[in-house]
């Protein structure tokens, strides 16, 4: 779908990827009050694959992720340049409704943020405000099953979501995002506030979800990126240093800086 110049294709894997790309970043630059956070980043996001974005704290990876569903719109004085192409449409074109973008590109945040409503309403709220009326029960059940939470909550759907544990709350937030049947699911360090067992739960879950969803995950846990993702983008100081197949990035990186980071010499 998206066009790339040869210089933007930073590894061989990318060439094959062009055809399956559901989302394509082209020279994306983001700045806060004139201070650059992301500079001219280009890479494609493959359909029904997991793409991880790694890099040291403050490298701009979360800022970049939030640009993909226009969540940066809420931060004052943010400017986004370049193009993010989704369905042949630049997400930052003037005629694009950001609300519509977020219906198709969902997001799960760093800290679980369930609404202070019942477990059921947390899942049903998004589809409800977007006009869905019938078979809501089935949708809630299906979404909670997809998020591997159904068995734990099926008898207490009317309890407050805040009564769940942190790991359960995060899976509820995933169910909430899935209930919208998004094309793409963005995840901003979804396991950073969780214990190792909850983290393993969520990693299993992501692995199963990729047969039907495209997932972009930001993480500073390199083991996590290498375990679950198909493609990896490594960023530093707002620049994309290297993008490629995860195995290649972690075993035969082309750039010295990537090798130093993935082998734990800095970051």
């Amino acid at each position: 779908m998206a066009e790339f110049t040869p210089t933007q294709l930073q590894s061989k894997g990318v060439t094959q990827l062009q055809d399956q790309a559901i989302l394509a970043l082209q020279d994306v630059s983001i700045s806060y009050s004139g201070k650059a956070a992301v500079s001219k980043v280009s890479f494609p996001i493959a359909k029904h694959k997991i793409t991880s974005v790694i890099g040291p704290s403050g490298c701009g990876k979360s800022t970049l992720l939030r640009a993909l569903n226009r969540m940066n719109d809420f931060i004052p004085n943010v400017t986004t340049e370049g193009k993010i192409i989704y369905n042949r449409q630049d997400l930052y074109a003037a005629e694009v409704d950001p609300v519509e973008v977020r219906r198709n590109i969902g997001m799960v945040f760093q800290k679980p943020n369930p609404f202070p409503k019942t477990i059921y309403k947390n899942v049903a709220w998004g589809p409800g405000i977007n006009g869905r009326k019938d078979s809501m029960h089935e949708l809630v059940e299906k979404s909670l099953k997809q998020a591997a939470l159904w068995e734990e909550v099926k008898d207490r759907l009317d309890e407050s979501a805040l009564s769940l544990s942190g790991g359960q709350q995060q899976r509820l937030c995933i169910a909430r995002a899935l209930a919208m049947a998004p094309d793409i699911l963005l995840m901003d360090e979804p396991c950073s506030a969780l214990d190792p067992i909850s983290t393993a739960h969520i990693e299993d879950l992501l692995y199963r979800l990729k047969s039907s969803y495209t997932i972009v995950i930001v993480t500073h846990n390199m083991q996590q990126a290498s375990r679950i993702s198909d493609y990896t983008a490594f960023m530093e100081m707002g620049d994309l240093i290297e993008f490629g197949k995860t195995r290649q990035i972690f075993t035969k990186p082309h750039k010295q800086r990537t090798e130093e980071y993935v082998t734990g010499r800095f970051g």
Partner: protein
Amino acid sequence: MAIRSSIRKGGVRWGEFSIEVGLACCTLISVITTAAIIFVLVKETLGFFSHVTPAEFLFGTRWVPLLKPSSFGVLPLLWGTLIVTVGAAIIAIPIGLASAVYLSEYASAKVRSTVKPVLELLAGIPTVVYGYFALTFVTPVLKTVIPQIQVFNALSGAIVVGLMILPMIASLSDNALRAVPDTLRQGAYAVGATSYEVTTQVVVPTALSGIMASFLLAISRAIGETMAVTLAAGATPNLSMSMLESIQTMTAYIVQVSLGDTPAGGVAYQTLFAVAALLFLITLLLNIISQWILRRYREVYD
């Protein structure tokens, strides 16, 4: 060696001790004052009830305490307070909440940082000013629309008391809305919600305990309000349904008797304390309820 010499085995540091006692005395002043006020209220109210039965006081419909034949039914005063308060709440609650939602959810940081201090400034205007505002501006304006309105009337009292508690509701509700974590708003936007849906269905319900508490505190202030309603609504105990007539609130009655030359010790004098005790009970109850709502419905976020 200096340190060692200052350690006294089992000794009392008199300097420290006297500071502690001094601070405790300052705290005691307000505690003792409150206790003394309650004691006087209870004592004089009991004295009043040795002349008038509680049933006559609470359910009587005529309030003529100073003239013979006297009658001590507090309902007209209670009614006066009620219609002014309800009228003020009807004006202030929707506008106050709407202002809070605008400030917290829609206004830019620049607008908010200008408007919020102005709101807090409004809360500092002496209430007697609001009273004169009612008498010299609100009532004449009302008279052009409703010619039969009296010079002193419940409606203009309700309007100015409503304007008076409006900034309080706006400011406190704004604080409650701002306390809702941003991550919750983002979660709502991320499922394709509009600003209006996020505000009405996620942010306001989450802040509801704080918003309700701001309503109750404002209502309790409206009930206790004295000068503005005395000037605007007059001094005629009146059980009328019409807001166009002069009425008298409990506080306005207290002003009237305190200013007059009612001799101390008589039943007429004791009515002051009975009315004040009733007023105190009502506002105390409202404050307790608002504290309870705040504690009971506060959602815990870390």
